[in-house]
């Protein structure tokens, strides 16, 4: 058969042997031996999987360990490329651009953890793709799966005016030391580590990590404040202080000991309770510390505990291409000045600036990346860094070069002003590719991006606000630490289901993500823009002064007033009145399930909706009680909201409210065991039935209210799926 004879609309297939796996092993024989060994294992297992010789579950965990992640769409994979601290040489950037073109969509996506992700990759291409990455010194090993994920850190490390010292060699040494380490291979869940050069700025976000290390100098010695057990997810935990000061040469053994404690005490049965934050919660901070310190003497001495820092310091010199210079910013064009204000950060090295390239939705095309490399060669020496804000920085640009650099970035679409402002929206993949996505976080981010491009100057006075979006409660978009956060959910109205977003207010990225926001009610995905406009204009008008932060402002006016401000926007009109509300942002088809009309279940439908609305109200009451420190009332309202939501769903299965039944047992049997309700959220109801509110700490009480919110949201989603 030749292609000439083929139907134009049926692509030819069936060649390339039994699996069509692209390998290229022989061409890349010279790669790092450890990476080579990894890839031999990966390719052998992939081949065995195609031959039916490896159970799917075993291959799944293996491929995750190599950064190969299933997408929502069958038949294609997301590849997560681990870039410690987001550090890339220009040669590596070229390789990344080429691989995005050849194996993916021509896009490199920068994640909130300084990785690069490719989407829509054929699994049969992965051995060749991974070898080509290894050829330029990049591994995907432990980028996904139950392992130490990418180690992140401030992109300004080494150039920041406020840092204690440059964390780059320490963070990179930690990444290299823990990679493939025997003590990190037996976790029940993922494990995340972040470094920050100071305690006050948000770049490291150490408070939301399993281990956070914040640079400190004490008595002339370098060391770290070490925090543990933080994490976002559906219920966020603030990291707790393990050591106020740990000398730098103790850092790696302590990280190793923490890894062992996680492996020993982590919950392996219940995935939603398996993160390290639950170990810290279960053991308590003191017992966790004792367990870590009990592991330390057992560790055989390892020369890398100190040598690795030296190795990394030598590998990663911070160097400028050109001598320092000065620039009269006021003499430049208005467009330059606007860009300079938000996208250039003066360095501690006088005469140099760090330039931040704002990438909408964290995406950069291969053409842009290649052009950026060609440009960067004329301005910087050390390569680029990816940021947790899904952007790119170029460091050590001599100041006099900035106007020329700005002019050269403009035609590439890489000179957008507004980096790390309200316009720089963070979003997780959401329903575009994530299996757990409920609403389109990227579609919403793209719509907001258009809005800010068109109306950017209207937000100049409130540009420091940050917006972060997750497609579900799991918080990969970090909505809890946004000033204005959103997470995806759904609402059924009659026979149609609408995509909605829960509004989460009161979080902050400041002080490494020190406070988390709380849910404030939901809004159609098409009205989010109006919510942002309303909140921004109210804040601008009513704040007590420039120094009042948005988080303080929301706290001052209170939840009731905030809800009043947004009240008219929270209505979800019927499908008949506004059909566009039942289609997600930038989505081609109606969202969710349309169950048709005319069934005699009309009465039941109205009852379930009525009860779910009651549950929403209960959650709202619980948050108000929590604010007012009415502990028992908050707990009771949260528990009742869950009970009401559970009853609501049971009514759709023929249960009558007047029936006598054990709610927890029947709900479990009917929904949880049948796979129609997320089991981890059900646990929240079961736990609440046993809890004594008087015995709960303040943090545990807040968790109960958050759990109840998640339970009720899941009830809405489960109802939408029916």
């Amino acid at each position, binding site marked *: *058969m*030749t*292609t*000439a004879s*083929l139907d*134009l*609309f*049926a*692509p*030819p*297939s*069936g*060649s*390339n042997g039994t699996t*069509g796996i692209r390998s*290229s092993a022989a*061409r890349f024989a010279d790669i790092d031996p450890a990476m080579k060994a990894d890839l031999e294992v990966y390719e052998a297992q992939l081949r065995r999987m195609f031959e039916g010789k490896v159970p799917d579950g075993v291959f799944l965990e293996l491929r995750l360990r190599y950064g190969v992640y299933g997408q929502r*769409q*069958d*038949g*294609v994979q997301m590849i997560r490329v681990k870039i410690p601290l987001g550090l890339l040489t220009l040669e590596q950037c070229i390789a990344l*651009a*080429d691989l995005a*073109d*050849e194996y993916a*969509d*021509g*896009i490199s996506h920068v994640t909130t953890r300084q990785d690069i992700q490719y*989407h*829509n990759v*054929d699994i*049969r291409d992965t051995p*060749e793709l991974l070898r*080509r990455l290894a050829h330029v010194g990049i591994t995907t090993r432990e980028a996904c799966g139950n392992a130490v994920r990418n180690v992140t850190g401030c992109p300004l490390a080494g150039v920041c005016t406020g840092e204690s010292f440059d964390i780059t060699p320490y963070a990179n040494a930690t990444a290299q030391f823990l990679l493939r380490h025997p003590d990190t291979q037996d976790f029940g869940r993922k494990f995340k580590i972040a470094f920050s050069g100071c305690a006050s700025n948000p770049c490291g976000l150490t408070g939301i990590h399993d281990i956070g290390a914040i640079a400190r100098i004490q008595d002339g010695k370098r060391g770290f404040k070490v925090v543990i057990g933080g994490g976002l997810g559906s219920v966020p935990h603030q990291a707790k202080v393990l050591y106020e000061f740990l000398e730098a040469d103790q850092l790696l053994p302590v990280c190793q000991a923490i890894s062992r404690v996680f492996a020993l005490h982590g919950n392996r049965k219940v995935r939603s309770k398996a993160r390290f934050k639950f170990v810290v919660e279960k053991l308590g901070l003191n017992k966790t510390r004792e367990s870590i310190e009990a592991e330390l003497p057992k560790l055989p001495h390892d020369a890398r505990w100190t040598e690795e820092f030296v190795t990394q310091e030598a590998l990663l010199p911070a160097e400028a291409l050109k001598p320092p210079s000065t620039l009269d910013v006021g003499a430049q064009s208005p467009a330059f000045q606007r860009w300079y204000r938000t996208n250039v950060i003066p360095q501690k090295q006088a005469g140099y600036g760090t330039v931040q390239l704002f990438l*909408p*939705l964290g*995406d*950069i*095309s*291969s*053409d*842009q990346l*290649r*052009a950026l490399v*060609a440009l960067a060669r004329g301005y910087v020496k050390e390569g680029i860094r990816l940021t947790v804000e899904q952007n790119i920085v170029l460091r050590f640009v001599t100041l006099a070069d900035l106007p020329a650099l700005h002019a050269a970035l403009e035609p*590439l*679409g890489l000179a957008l002003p507004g980096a790390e402002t309200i316009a720089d929206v963070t979003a997780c993949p959401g329903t*575009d590719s994530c299996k757990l996505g409920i609403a389109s976080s*990227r*579609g919403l981010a*793209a719509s907001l*991006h*258009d809005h800010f491009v068109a109306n950017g100057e209207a937000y100049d006075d409130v540009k420091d606000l940050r917006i972060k979006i997750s497609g579900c409660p799991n918080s990969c978009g970090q909505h809890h630490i946004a000033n204005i956060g959103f997470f995806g959910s759904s609402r059924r109205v009659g026979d149609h289901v609408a995509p909605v977003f829960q509004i989460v207010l009161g979080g902050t990225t400041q002080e490494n993500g020190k406070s988390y926001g709380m849910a404030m009610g939901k809004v159609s995905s098409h009205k989010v823009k109006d919510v942002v406009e309303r909140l921004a204009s109210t804040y601008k008008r009513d704040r007590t002064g420039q120094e009042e932060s948005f988080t303080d402002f929301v706290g001052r006016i209170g939840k009731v007033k905030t809800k009043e401000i947004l009240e008219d926007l929270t209505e979800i009109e019927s499908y008949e009145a506004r059909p566009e509300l039942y289609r997600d942002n*930038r*989505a*081609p*088809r109606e969202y969710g399930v349309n169950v048709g009309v005319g069934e005699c279940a009309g009465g039941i439908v109205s009852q379930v909706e009525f009860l779910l609305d009651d549950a929403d109200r209960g959650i709202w009451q619980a948050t108000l009680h929590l604010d007012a420190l009415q502990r028992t009332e908050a707990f009771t309202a949260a528990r009742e909201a869950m009970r009401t939501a559970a009853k609501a769903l049971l009514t759709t299965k023929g249960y009558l409210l007047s029936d006598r039944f054990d709610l927890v047992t029947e709900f479990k049997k009917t929904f949880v065991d049948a796979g129609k309700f997320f089991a981890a959220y059900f646990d929240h109801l079961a736990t609440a039935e046993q809890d004594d509110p008087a015995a709960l700490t303040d943090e545990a009480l807040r968790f109960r209210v958050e759990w109840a919110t998640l339970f009720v949201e899941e009830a809405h989603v489960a109802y939408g799926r029916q």
Partner: protein
Amino acid sequence: MQQSEHSGDLQRIQVKVFLERPVGFSGDPFIAILDRWRAEDNAAAAPAQPWIDFVDYAHVKDGPGILLVGRELQLSLDLGDGRVAITLRGRRDLLGTDTERFTWALRRALATTNRALADATCPPGLAPSHLELELSVNDRLDFAPGPETEARLRGPIHATFDACLGAGAYTSIALPAAAARYGYVARSLAPRALSTAFGG
């Protein structure tokens, strides 16, 4: 035999059919168009599902645009270089000689362009004036720009252009180094309709 010295398997063929970009152009209607194609083609090919999903990169300036991702190829409304094109990117499973593969890919891209332009929701004004076509290879491992690739593929690419546009009826230039892939762009000497390709 054209590929005697070079053993690479030609799969990642990229074809662009360039279109005039109307003033105020928005590619957004292609979200619905490509999604409709996905549903129609998958229904027609059932149980095979040649198309996986559409992807929206319209927010990336001069980027890949709006894509329909398939198992063997991708189609897109391509916004690269500030232009508009219907682009086909082969991924795997092409058979035949190099010329046959280029020809199949080009015919397929032209048929796709016709299908797009005939769609009632296609943005008005989107059409070719001259026939302007790119044939390139998105494979830097086996077909990096250079003399070996030139020796193997220049002939098949131009044989394909000859068949499509008529020998002597077009000019062709090699892709610039910045494109970082091997290939040529051909442009008909005179304005031409799509229907005149491959002898009408």
